[in-house]
């Protein structure tokens, strides 16, 4: 059961994501056609917001793993670092891609270089891409792990910056809609429910991915060790 836990998380998460999309397209109410250039495109948020949320969880795991490796030399920390980078890259790309679809439909441009949240989130995704590609191109070793963990540690500063960006600079992204303070936000309850199901589904899904990624890293290390033994290195 424990051995198949990642697959169970992945299956549940995927089913939840499908449910979210079905509800988002067929059940959630439409927005006012006067308030939006492209009201139908607003439904991309049922994918965009949960995937960005899952990306933040993954970046948090990346930071935690980097700390564990850098200060404790923990093998678990390195596996968390690897899992956090891969999951962060995937969810970051999903959020960026869905944001570009929204931007093209609503703003008339897929990207705006003046929007702070857009660009800090784009940088986070690029950082994850750098870490994934860098790890694949470099031989595994203490120096390599230290270098990538340092990027994981310092890169995390972009997470709180991205979170507060729309509170300080409202350019293209709207201000807080859900956690808006005492008035409870401006979101209809049925829309909030679909977003909540989406956030939970993406969370379960990304936990499944990180668990399986950690397992793959561990298996690769064992395979490498076994190959060294076979070659007479140990």
């Amino acid at each position, binding site marked *: 059961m424990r051995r198949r836990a990642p697959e169970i998380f992945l299956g549940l998460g995927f089913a939840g994501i499908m449910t979210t999309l079905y509800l988002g397209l067929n059940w959630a109410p439409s927005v006012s056609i006067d308030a939006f250039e492209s009201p139908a495109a607003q439904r991309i948020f049922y994918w965009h917001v949960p995937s960005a949320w899952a990306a933040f969880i993954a970046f948090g795991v990346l930071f935690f793993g980097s700390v564990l490796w850098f200060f404790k030399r923990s093998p678990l920390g390195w596996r968390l670092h690897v899992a956090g980078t891969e999951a962060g890259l995937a969810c970051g790309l999903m959020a960026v891609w869905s944001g570009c679809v929204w931007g093209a439909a609503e703003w008339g441009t897929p990207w705006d270089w003046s929007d702070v949240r857009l660009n800090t989130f784009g940088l986070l995704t690029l950082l994850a891409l750098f870490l994934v590609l860098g790890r694949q191109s470099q031989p595994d070793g203490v120096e390599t792990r230290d270098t990538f963990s340092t990027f994981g540690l310092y890169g995390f500063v972009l997470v709180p910056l991205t979170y507060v960006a729309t509170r300080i600079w409202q350019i293209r992204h709207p201000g807080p809609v859900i956690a808006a303070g005492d008035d409870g936000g401006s979101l209809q309850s049925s829309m909030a429910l679909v977003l909540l199901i989406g956030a939970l589904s993406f969370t379960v899904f990304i936990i499944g991915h990180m668990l399986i990624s950690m397992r793959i890293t561990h298996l690769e290390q064992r395979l490498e*060790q076994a190959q060294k033994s076979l070659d007479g290195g140990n």
Partner: protein
Amino acid sequence: MEGTNYLTVAYLGMIAAIAIWTWTVVVRSRSIEARLEAVESSIGIDASQADDVAIQSTVDSQDDATV
């Protein structure tokens, strides 16, 4: 209606992408697991010795501390 079609195509593309990603990762995990079981059972090492970089790093730290 055109906007909804456009959105459905965007959604289907993203669903296909995460489905392929998930399938690839699960297949890779199972394939490495099968290879590893075959190799480890033939040479007799266990999982605790897996991360030799971490083990070596810890040994180096202890050596530094004793110097």
